[in-house]
């Protein structure tokens, strides 16, 4: 009720399109009166030549295809799902092969649609147009993608119901050989029990009935002929036991069914999440690879640096040693030079002294002569 109220009460906006058209007419007449002309035909023709391979027409095509698929699925949904009772043989019921066909077709269709979307996306990215158009196209493709996902969900729901029914059938069909086995076991047990009963009764009875023959009879015959009330009771009891065991089995089977469906749902959810994480993991992988390479390069650089450092050290040592040696030699050299100089100067002095002496003796000789 409230929804209805809301929708009808929200009719507050006033449609003035007619008013607008009326104003267009007034303006037209006014223009005619003033004498402004315009040609309309040229533009119309120009507009008609819209590019057929544009983005929009193709996107619209994809949408129409998806809609076709949706209609197809919805149309056949009832028949597909109506495996009401396993024993029924309605004419409208689909055979399994038809169902498989539908599944296959739907899958192929969905795959082609998603590929078409991807193609459109690649093309849109390659064509370097303005940023706004790019964003617009990206969002349009997202919208189409989510529409496709919605339709795929329809399909997968149908499929899930079908799979569940198949699992159903399989379990039940497996149950019947077990049932047979169990019944046989019971049958073997029955004669044994009856044998003991018979033995008791025969013990009780007067040996009118020959025991051996009775036992023989019972061993061979099995569960035929006269059934005394006790045996009937026993049979009934065993029947009841069987029935209760079957019931518990059925319950267990149902539980397992439910769990399998839950598990499948969980798996779906997990698969979705895993797919979501795929892209993140990819990016992490890239980062890690980049990081390892960086670390390797860093190691190399460090090694080089160490080498350079070592080499540098060697050179420094060498330089120091050379310096010290040069210092030493310079020093010794200077010392030696000093010695030489000293000795030379001494010699010179001696020489001088001798000269002086000689001159001195010379002079006085000369002086005395003069």
């Amino acid at each position: 009720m409230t929804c209805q109220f809301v929708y009808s009460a929200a009719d507050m906006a006033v449609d003035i399109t007619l008013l607008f058209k009326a104003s267009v007419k007034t303006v037209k007449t006014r223009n005619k009166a003033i004498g402004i002309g315009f040609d309309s035909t040229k533009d119309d023709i120009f507009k008609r030549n819209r590019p057929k391979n544009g983005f929009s027409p193709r996107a619209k095509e994809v949408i129409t295809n998806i809609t076709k698929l949706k209609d197809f699925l919805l149309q056949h949904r009832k028949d597909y799902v109506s495996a009401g009772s396993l024993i029924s043989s309605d004419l409208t019921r689909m055979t399994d092969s038809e169902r498989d066909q539908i599944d296959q077709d739907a899958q192929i269709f969905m795959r082609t649609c998603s590929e078409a979307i991807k193609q459109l996306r690649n093309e849109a990215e390659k064509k370097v147009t303005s940023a706004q158009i790019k964003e617009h196209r990206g969002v349009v493709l997202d919208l189409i993608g989510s529409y496709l996902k919605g339709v795929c969900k329809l399909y997968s729901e149908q499929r899930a119901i079908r799979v569940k029914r198949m699992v159903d059938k399989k379990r039940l069909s497996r149950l019947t050989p077990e049932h047979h086995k169990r019944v046989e076991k019971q049958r073997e047990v029955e004669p044994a029990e009856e044998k003991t009963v018979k033995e008791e009764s025969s013990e009780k009875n007067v040996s009118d009935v020959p025991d051996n023959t009775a036992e023989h009879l019972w061993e061979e015959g099995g569960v035929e002929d006269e059934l005394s009330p006790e045996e009937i009771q026993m049979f009934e009891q065993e029947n009841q036991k069987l029935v209760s065991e079957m019931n518990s089995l059925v319950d267990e089977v149902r539980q397992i069914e439910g769990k399998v469906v839950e598990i499948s749902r969980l798996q779906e959810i997990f698969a979705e999440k895993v797919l979501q994480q795929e892209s993140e993991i990819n990016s992490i992988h890239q980062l890690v690879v980049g990081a390892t390479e960086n670390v390797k390069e860093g190691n190399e650089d460090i090694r080089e640096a160490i080498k350079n450092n070592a080499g540098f050290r060697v050179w420094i040592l060498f330089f120091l040693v050379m310096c010290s040696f040069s210092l030493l030699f310079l020093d010794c050299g200077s010392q030696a030079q000093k010695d030489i100089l000293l000795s030379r100067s001494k010699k010179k002095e001696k020489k001088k002294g001798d000269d002086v002496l000689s001159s001195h003796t010379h002079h006085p000789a000369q002086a005395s002569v003069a």
Partner: protein
Amino acid sequence: MAASVREKQTVALKRMLNFNAPPLKNTTAEPVWKVLIFDRFGQDIISPLLSVKELRDMGITLHLLLHSDRDPIPDVPAIYFVMPTEENIDRICQDLRNQLYESYYLNFISAISRSKLEDIASAALASNAVSQVTKVFDQYLNFITLEDDMFILCHQNKELISYHAINKADILDTDMEAIMDTIVDSLFCFFVTLGAVPIIRCPRGNAAEMVAGKLNKKLRENLRDARNSLFTGDNMTAGQFSFQRPLFVLADRNVDMATPLHHSWTYQALIHDVLDYHLNRVVMEEGAGPDSPPAGARPKKKNRKTFDLTAADRFWQKHKGSPFPEVAESVQEEVETYKAQEDEVKRLKTIMGLEGEDDGAISMLSDTTAKLTSAVSSLPDMLEKKRLIDLHTTVLTAVIDHIRTRKLDVYFENEEKLMSKSTLDKSLLDIITDPDAGTPEDKMRLFLIFYITAQQAPSESDLDQYKKALLDAGCDLSPLNYIKQWKAFTKMAATPANYGNSGVKPMGLLSRVMNTGSQFVMEGVKNLVLKQHNLPITRILDNLMEMKSHPETDDYLYFDPKMLRGSESSIPRNKNPFQEAVVFVVGGGNYIEYQNMADYAKSKQGKKVIYGCSELFNATQFIKQLSQLGQK
């Protein structure tokens, strides 16, 4: 008014975005894509109501501003949502000439005039695009709905209709007329969207009276025009569950000047007061660590984060009116519940790890399977909850920082006491001269509230003392001049507003803190408990709704647009109490009043109150306007 205003406006917007046809409920409908173009007014209207994701879901691929550079996107219909102003019309004509889009759906926020429509028509003719203009609509959505029961008029050019603009001394008649027209136009759109014709009551002799008169006239004209009336048709008859019309109370800001200056203690009001909060969006800077970076290092870049506080956030809706310590506690509780859920999920993980090897234990597996299913399906909800908890934690931390540095709890307590006329613990002068209690603005606010609520004006010497203290603290005294004028003016009018009795009980300072063991360090912040009290405007509303007789409201004018004989005002015919009311404050309002009104509506069973104001300001902005007024 079965649906709230917000819902109605949202529905109207969605219809508009669906090419003006009612949206279908089909979940897998074919996507139709379109481009939305709005101007700033349109943006303000749409942004509190529809998120970008919702727009995308409706098929809107791009949303652009009208006056931005737009590239031609052929083959796409464009929906315009603009105000019919000159520049917008020119731009639309330009777009038509440039053939930007395939088809045009023009929606005008308020009614467009005939001449402007002809301008568009001539442009369309000139560029031969008449066939492309598919629909033209008047949307009548010229107001912004912020909450289910709160709306404001505009956010963009609010200086034009601000308190300052209305009350300034040198206002011209033409300016006043223009302002009144803007306000009346928006109110008219509001009532059209609401779908009801109200009964109008307003006080005498101020801006509110002018607005009421004009609105009455406009509504009456529209109702008379039976052909084009917006209020007839199945709008009114379809499920108007209340047979009464709503009461529309127009109040003027001058009736209560203290509330906008008041320091608040409820969550939403605090955020509005302390942080940057507009249109349901909080903008905060974050990233500054507790210790400042060492000198010489590059300062850490502060990121600006925006948070949207929306209707979908259940915690926000529940607690936005709660007093602050309660909110902190609730956030703690939410965090604990979330952690418990997270632990359960983790525990399931380990159990599953063990059980995977054991084929036989099917029975145990069933339980865990069921639990696992429920856990996995509840994962998105949990993630969303975590995001909201983080959001509120950040916001709360920021608010607490402010409270602590400015000692807002002290101010709140004192102001409450002033407004209820009980005695203060510390004298006013002490608080003002206290150097580390709040910014100068806080002190100014406290003093102004004191001045407003004082029974008789303080003596000249006292006043000088206060003035000196305020000047020492660094306050600007021009608001005080204006308040003096205002007080003198209102003294001639009714009795000074009585703020009712409100008791403020400070709880044990440390006991509560210790009990909650809160991660929010609340030491030094008193846990104050609010007692219910009614602000003046709430009391006016109460009197009018319940038809009580009170000297304050007895001489309020009465307008009924539906009356055939149009007299100015008449005696109220209706003696029954009203069930719905719309309160509108001309000159501005704030969240404290809104909260008070919402609490009042909650306390009365079955009454709905919508609060609206011409603009929404916090105390800082109000003081700025007052100082502008006081400087004249």
